[in-house]
């Protein structure tokens, strides 16, 4: 449609709105139409607006003006019928093309989450999404070069293993958390589902004694007593500090228990790290809130002795806090992992960016951070083209933190990891010697040996 008739029709349609509406908005709308480049879409949009306003109870009271409605209906039909024919023809064309190429894969799929069993360090659980949505797999990785598949179960993302290795907490893709009995890794069974205030739980952590499960949900942390996994009891809901910038709410967040189980650290919902006193979970209170100077923290880890808390921010800065006085965490060291340039190069328009894993060695002497930088992804949804092959890169940084006041970097490793689409959070095995990466397309899990 040429602009001139479209503009004329648009102005005519403004006259078709109910009288009271015109008295209020007509001048403003005409002013907008003066500045707006009217197209067929503008006309159609106004026609729909006219009809829905006439049907709106707030304006219906004045009585329908049949002449106006009829005028609007005629104008809409003139536009809508040819448009509908074009849409249907295009749809048929696209359908025929896809059919011929035999490719109906629309969506994403791949490995989304992973966890190691703390009891048997050779049991790994992975989850996938996409066509095999929510399918988890238990692996025996005794021989990292030849992982053995033990069983599949439909749990969702496994986010935490209970310390005894018998229970896995998962979050289904509808946001429903559940507990699974994996005492016999070849026969996993669902024990129960947990009910929270809403769906969309992201991070979960078991207390070291395995009695408490903490799960964060937007600005809240739920604490369940899971002594009897079949009958979990909601003990308490903690309100996490939420502060601008709101965009921090969209980040990967984390919660972690101190090794003695008396403290819980969370990054939930703001550019801050909160420390909670968990001595009595029923009366858990926030004892400290530390602003993160380097932006939102993506991952947290307590040292094995519980005297240090490490956090890594989206910008790749690792901060070490001393917990000598848990109510007053003191910043003792900051270390940089990947550079701002590397992050910028890996951040795509869709919002993907680096993902981090942080872990102290069991002896507390070293701290390892893995930064996973995805390549900028192309078109994510693809109806008839194969996904372009892409290589993500993992950077592993190892520091000596025996003396937190003079931290030295021991090693930096870098390797290409995944193909196509992106990857899940990198994972360190409990011995700190193997990095596990999962490709989010192609369902591949890769184990990397650290020297």
């Amino acid at each position: 449609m040429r602009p001139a008739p479209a503009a004329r029709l648009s102005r005519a349609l403004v006259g078709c709105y109910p009288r009271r509406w015109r008295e209020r908005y007509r001048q403003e709308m005409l002013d907008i139409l003066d500045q707006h480049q009217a197209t067929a879409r503008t006309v159609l949009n106004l026609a729909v607006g006219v009809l829905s306003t006439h049907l709106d109870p707030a304006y219906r009271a004045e009585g329908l003006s049949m002449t106006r409605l009829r005028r609007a209906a005629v104008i809409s039909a003139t536009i809508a019928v040819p448009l509908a024919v074009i849409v249907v023809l295009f749809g048929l064309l696209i359908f025929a093309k896809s059919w011929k190429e035999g490719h109906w894969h629309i969506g994403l799929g791949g490995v989304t989450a992973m966890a190691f069993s703390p009891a048997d360090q050779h049991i790994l659980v992975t989850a996938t999404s996409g066509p095999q949505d929510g399918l988890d797999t238990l692996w025996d990785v005794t021989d990292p070069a030849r992982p053995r598949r033990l069983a599949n179960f439909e749990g969702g993302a496994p986010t935490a293993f209970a310390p005894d290795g018998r229970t896995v907490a998962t979050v289904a893709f509808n946001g429903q958390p559940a507990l699974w009995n994996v005492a016999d890794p070849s026969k996993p069974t669902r024990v129960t589902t947990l009910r929270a205030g809403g769906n969309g739980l992201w991070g979960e952590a078991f207390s070291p004694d395995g009695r408490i499960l903490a799960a964060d949900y937007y600005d809240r942390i739920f604490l369940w007593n899971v002594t009897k996994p079949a009958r979990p009891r909601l003990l308490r809901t903690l309100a996490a500090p939420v502060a601008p910038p709101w965009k921090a709410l969209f980040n990967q967040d984390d919660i972690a228990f101190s090794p003695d189980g008396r403290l819980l650290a969370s990054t939930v919902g703001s550019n801050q790290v909160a420390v909670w006193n968990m001595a009595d979970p029923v009366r858990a209170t926030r004892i400290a809130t530390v602003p993160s100077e380097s932006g939102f923290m993506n991952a947290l880890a307590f040292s094995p002795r519980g005297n240090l808390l490490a956090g890594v921010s989206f910008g790749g800065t690792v901060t070490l806090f001393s917990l000598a006085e848990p109510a007053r965490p003191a910043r003792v060291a900051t270390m940089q992992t990947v550079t701002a340039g590397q992050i910028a190069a890996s951040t795509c328009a869709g919002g993907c960016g680096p993902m981090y894993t942080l872990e102290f060695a069991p002896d507390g002497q070293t701290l390892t951070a893995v930064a996973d930088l995805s390549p900028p992804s192309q078109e994510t949804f693809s109806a008839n083209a194969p996904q372009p092959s892409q290589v993500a890169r993992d950077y592993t940084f190892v520091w000596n933190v025996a003396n937190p006041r003079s931290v030295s970097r021991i090693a930096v490793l870098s390797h290409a990891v995944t193909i196509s689409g992106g990857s899940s959070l990198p994972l360190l095995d409990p011995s700190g010697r193997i990095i596990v990466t999962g490709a989010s397309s192609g369902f591949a899990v890769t184990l990397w040996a650290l020297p």
Partner: protein
Amino acid sequence: MHGKFDSLGRFADPSLLILTSLADGPKHGYAIMADVADFSGVRMEPGTLYGALSRLERRGWVRPLATEDRRRPYQITATGQEVLAEQVATMQQIVRVARLRTATAWGA
């Protein structure tokens, strides 16, 4: 950006876009349209804009200010700001689920 969204249907709720646009100060109709196109890539048509504006006004989430030369600026109300904050919280929940499903980290 909007090209991709168009092919998938209407992604963004016009009310949310308008409230977001007014969050940093009053704007008149055309300025809202230009601002929304600018920050979200969504090209709102006048019919959609005024349909949503009149609903927002009726609910007391925005209020019209005095007309300046044919143009009437709109201002977000305190209730409107609360509603916007709630909407952002809901979106965050959606993002969490989307992130679980796509395993893609979101930038700061």
